[in-house]
């Protein structure tokens, strides 16, 4: 049996779905962030698999850019989580509902 790029993309879809469910279910800001990372990873796997099927290196370059954006996003996001934690000693996103306008 040959492993086609479709197999990897199906796996990536499952990982993305798990990450999306985690983002919707959990209230801990850190876990929500990890779920976002999971979804970004799934998309990266899709890029590499599609690039392999098309015989094109652009898929791997796209993964490179996804990685850079993910790294920048994690730096700022975790700084926000730490700043919020210093103020109210909680990492639950429900405690931030007073931010609503």
């Amino acid at each position: 049996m040959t492993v086609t790029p479709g197999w990897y993309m199906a796996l990536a879809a499952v990982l993305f779905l798990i990450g999306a469910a985690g983002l919707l279910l959990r209230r801990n800001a850190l876990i929500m962030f990890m779920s976002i990372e999971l979804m970004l990873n799934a998309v990266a796997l899709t890029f590499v698999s599609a690039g392999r099927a098309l015989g094109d290196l652009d898929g791997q370059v796209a993964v490179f850019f996804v990685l850079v954006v993910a790294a920048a996003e994690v730096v700022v996001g975790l700084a926000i989580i730490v700043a919020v934690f210093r103020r109210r000693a909680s990492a639950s996103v429900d405690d931030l509902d007073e931010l609503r306008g």
Partner: protein
Amino acid sequence: MTVELVLFVIFALVAVAGALAVVFSRNPIYSAIGLLATMVSLAVFYVVQSAQFVAMVQIIVYAGAVLTLFLFVIMFIGVDQAEDTEERIPRQRALVAALVLIVLVGAGVLVLRDQWTWVPAAPATAEAPNGTVQAVSTVLFEEWVLAFEVTSLLLVVAAAGAIALAYFRPVRKRRSVEQ
């Protein structure tokens, strides 16, 4: 080809198990370990698909830097933070379960009935591109050099933002005097 099949089965199971651990474990440390398992299995998939540069970057940046940052923050915030399980949005869990089920069943039906092509424009004889550092950098610096330069701007802004967030302390006393 059989090697790829064996690797795919093993590491697909590891990746899915890690992803489930991220979402469903009570302890954030276990979530981070699950995320590590998923990232390492994805790196294996990249090597198998001859994307060596991306695989190395995945290990160094994701499994190395990003996950270490996560663990730092978990240690800083504390691991035994009990998450409240009260549902603020009514029937939140049931809605998410229904959403996941709808997507899974819909995609499964499409794939099993052969009404789905994963990569529509793919030529049948396409060779997997060899993602060495040289090959990737040639494409990156010839076709995508503008995007690459914009990336550096993004990183500077992110670094400045993180420093600003960490630098400015909350000024509770002064504010209470003003009020």
